[in-house]
Structures are given as structure tokens and as C-alpha cells.
């Protein structure tokens, strides 16, 4: 990310980027997935430094932040020594490093109570639900975090075969739920479905194509 774009991102997050430059930034964001990732990272770090609230993160994201910290340390020092770009201006170097470190620590703490502690698995026995063994995240690409486990049940000699639950079933539930979801929750549900990246609902009931209604 260039210094200019970094300053644009910072100004935008502060609510101070002129609208003409905001449009340019938006265009870049829709085209550049790498910039989107950097933007998300800076937004998180910015919120942590502003003290507007801790940020809940996954372990995978914590790893990416840690990797990013390594990558950003050099420009940070250089920036402070020279012109001090806008992004870093309000913060002393030590404070920035401490703040970013706090984000990473928080991420690890949050992970301890994350869904991975209670993975969703498919059991072969309905009558005697199997205790989930140690889980291994297999996909965090979509907003549905799928967790699979292939280790045997503790105390059991027989290896148990687990199946990753089909996210299509969850998508069906979420879609049906959105109809009754109240308030801002509905927005959360629908925007999440828009960015979800899972498989086609298995065996869904197909109907003949019908033309989309025009208002």
C-alpha cells in the first residue's frame, strides 16, 4: 500500500476524506483485493487505537495481523523518523506497537472462547451424540466457519468419521430466518449472505425459471 493510499484510508476512517478522493478510494477497493485486506486491517487497528471498543478476531486473522505487523514495522520506523504520515501522527511509535500488540493478544484471548471450542460436526448416531474431539478449522473463507474433526473420540478405540456439515443447510436456515429477523439484525444477516461463499444448496427444490418482477 502506498503512502498516499494509506493516508487516504486513514482520513476516510477519521471521516475527513473529501468526497472526490473517497470515490477514488472506493474504486480502488472494489478492484484490488489486496487493498481490501489492508483496509480491513487498518480499520481494525484504528478502532483499537481509538479505544472505541475491542475487536473480536479469529485466530486466522490474528495470524495475518501478526504477519502484517512484521511487514509494517520497517515503514513505521521510517515514517516516524521522516515526515510522519497522517496514519501514524497521533501516536508515538511505542504506543502504536503496544496497541497493535494488544490487538493480537486480544485475538488470541477471543479465540479461547470461539466456536472452535464447540465445533459443529455431523454425528452418525442421533441417539447418542458424540463428544466432539479436538477440532481443526478447515474453512474460514466464508462467513460460515466450518469446523471438522477427524480425531477419534477420547476414550474410544474406534476412529469416528466426521463429516463437515453442509453450509448449504445453514444457508437455508439463515435465509429463512432473515424474514423474521428484526431491526439491524436483518441487515447483518443479508449482508452476510451476500458475501458468503459456500456451495449450492444440496438437493434444493428447483422450479421453472420465472421472470424477475419489475417494480
Amino acid at each position: 500500500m502506498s503512502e498516499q493510499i494509506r493516508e487516504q484510508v486513514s482520513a476516510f476512517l477519521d471521516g475527513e476524506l473529501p468526497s472526490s478522493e473517497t470515490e477514488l478510494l472506493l474504486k480502488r477497493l472494489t478492484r484490488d483485493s489486496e487493498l481490501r485486506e489492508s483496509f480491513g486491517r487498518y480499520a481494525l487497528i484504528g478502532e483499537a487505537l481509538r479505544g472505541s471498543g475491542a475487536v473480536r478476531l479469529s485466530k486466522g486473522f490474528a495470524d495475518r495481523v501478526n504477519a502484517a505487523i512484521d511487514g509494517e514495522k520497517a515503514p513505521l520506523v521510517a515514517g516516524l523518523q521522516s515526515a510522519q504520515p497522517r496514519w501514524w501522527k497521533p501516536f508515538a511509535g511505542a504506543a502504536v506497537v503496544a496497541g497493535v500488540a494488544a490487538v493480537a493478544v486480544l485475538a488470541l484471548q477471543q479465540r479461547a472462547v470461539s466456536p472452535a471450542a464447540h465445533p459443529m460436526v455431523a454425528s452418525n448416531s442421533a441417539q447418542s451424540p458424540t463428544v466432539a474431539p479436538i477440532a481443526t478449522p478447515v474453512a474460514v473463507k466464508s462467513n460460515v466457519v466450518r469446523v471438522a474433526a477427524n480425531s477419534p473420540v477420547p476414550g474410544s478405540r474406534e476412529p469416528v468419521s466426521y463429516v463437515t456439515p453442509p453450509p448449504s443447510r445453514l444457508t437455508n436456515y439463515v435465509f429463512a430466518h432473515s424474514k423474521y429477523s428484526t431491526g439491524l439484525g436483518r441487515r447483518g444477516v443479508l449482508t452476510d449472505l451476500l458475501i458468503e461463499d459456500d456451495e449450492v444448496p444440496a438437493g434444493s427444490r428447483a422450479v421453472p425459471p420465472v421472470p424477475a418482477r419489475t417494480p
Partner: protein
Amino acid sequence: MSRVISRRLLAPCAVMGALLSSTVLAADDAREWLEKMNQALTGKNYDGTFMHLSEGRVETMRIVHRVRGGRVTERLQALDGSGREFVRNNDELTCYLPDQHTVLVEPRQDRGPFLGSLPKFGAEVNDFYRIESLPASRVLNRPVKVIAVNPKDQFRFGYRLWLDEKSAMPLKTQLCDASGAIIEQILFARLEMPDNIADSELTPAVRTDGMRWIRQGPPHGSSPTPLSAFRAMELPPGFRLTISGAQTLGGASVPASHLVYSDGLATVSVFVEAQRDSGPDTAPPADPPMQGLARVGSGYAFSTVIQGHQVTAVGEVPAQTVEFIAHAVKLSADHSSAPQH
């Protein structure tokens, strides 16, 4: 002497009274702004681009909302990645999934906007959420009112809203847990509120040639089925059953019971499905039952098997809430001897 004591008592009482009244006034002011926001979100035309941030991921989306002659049409479009779009009119919601060559169609019953307004704050909501005004700020170079809706316990999420002082539109929204940790954010980068919006702005850009159309089954609200005998026998504080019906979900041949529980702000859906038997050897194998917790966007889903039925609770609430409700689902005593299939 007594006059001195009275003065000593009066001064702190007066200060406390003033603080209390200012707190009440601030809360009333915040409620008024939330009501203004509701009116803007549901009754105004707007066309904006926003960023959806969650766990360091950012997605840019466009929202177009038009009210014309009492008819509402909305379009929500992902500008990067999947290219997915939602278009809603008064009757149905259509979800275009070009990455899956699929179009989902769902009949609509609610009238709320995609961006989501907040319900009116009645006494029951006040028991479980605390609303307050925070120091004013700026978003998109505009002065904004900042309102916090804080949950009073761990069973629900809260919101922080940055409302445009001119239009009351939420230029920035954060979903937070009970400790104040941010779960996701919506941040507008562009927002226009034109008097007129052309039909072309509400037409999906997705080409539907060759795509598969799927309709979620209509609700079967008035026809009781044996599944309707399932209920959550215990609920987190403030939650109550608001809707009970049945719905045919994609991939299922029989309807699932759909129970909706709400505290007035947060909503949890519970789906109860009879477990499908494998049937004869020629039949496709039944889906294995699901067990456990999954993250679903900003909320959670929890599945378990109870009395031979797949029970799944889904909602924009903390994990413990869906888990609590799913585990509490039981066949009511009156129907425990009734056949379930």
C-alpha cells in the same frame, strides 16, 4: 443545626437529581434520534455505497432504496467478489447468486428495509438494553449524533450508531457484544438521498440465463403439524415466542417447524425437522444429523438432536443464546405420546 443538616443533604440531592434528569433527557434524546433513523431508513429514497467490515475482511456494497406510491423496492449489491445481489419488493425477496448459477426466491412478510431499522423501544426492551448518547463526531465530513444501544447481559448484542445530523441516516454502525467488543461494522463511503430513483438503478446487473431458480416453500402458518408441538421450555431473560409456523426449506420434502423467539430487538429462529430415514436401499442416504455450534456471519447457529428431531437455532445473538434455546427445545407434555412422523 437541623437547617445546616438540611442544607448538607439538599446539595448532593440536588446534584444527583440534576444528573438523573440529564441522564433521562439524554436517553429520551437518543430514543428520538433512533425513531428519526427508523423513519429515514423506511420512508426515504437513498442510494449509497458502504463497506462491511468483519474480522478484518472488508466488502463494498451498494444499497438502493426507493419508496414510490407506498411501494418499496430495494436493491443490495456486492460490488466486489461474488457479484451477488438481493432485490426486494413488497411481495418477495430475490437473491441472485451468479457464482452459484442460482436464484433464490423467498416470499416476504416483513416491511423493514435491508439496512434494518430498530423497533420502538417499549418497556420490555428497556429492561434488557440501555440506550445513551455519546459525544458527537464526524463521518463522511458530516456532523453525526452517536447513539449506543448497550445490552445489559451476555445473551444479546448491542449497537453503536453514527447518525447524520441532517438526515438521521446511520452513516456508521457497529455491532458489539456485551463487553463492547466490535463484531462487525457498516461504514458508508457515499450516500445520496435523491427525490427520484430510476427503475434502472433497481434492476439487477446479473444475467439470469441458464441459472437455476429455487423457491423456498411458503410458510404453513395456519396448519398445525405434529412438529408444532415442539417448544423451547426455557428461555434467556426477555425472550418470548413471537411466531410459530412451518416452512419447507430447500432440499426437504416435508416442512420444518419454524419458531421465532425475540426480546424485541434480537431474534432467534428455531427449526425443528424430523430426521429423515434412509429408506429402501435404492433411496439416497439420509443426511447425517448435525451437532454443535457454527459461526454464521455476525451471529451463530447451534444444532442438536432432540427426541429424534434435528433442532437448529439461528440468530444474530451470542453463541450461548442459540445454544441455550436449542437445548431447551422439547416436545410439549401434551403431545409427547403423539406420533412424530
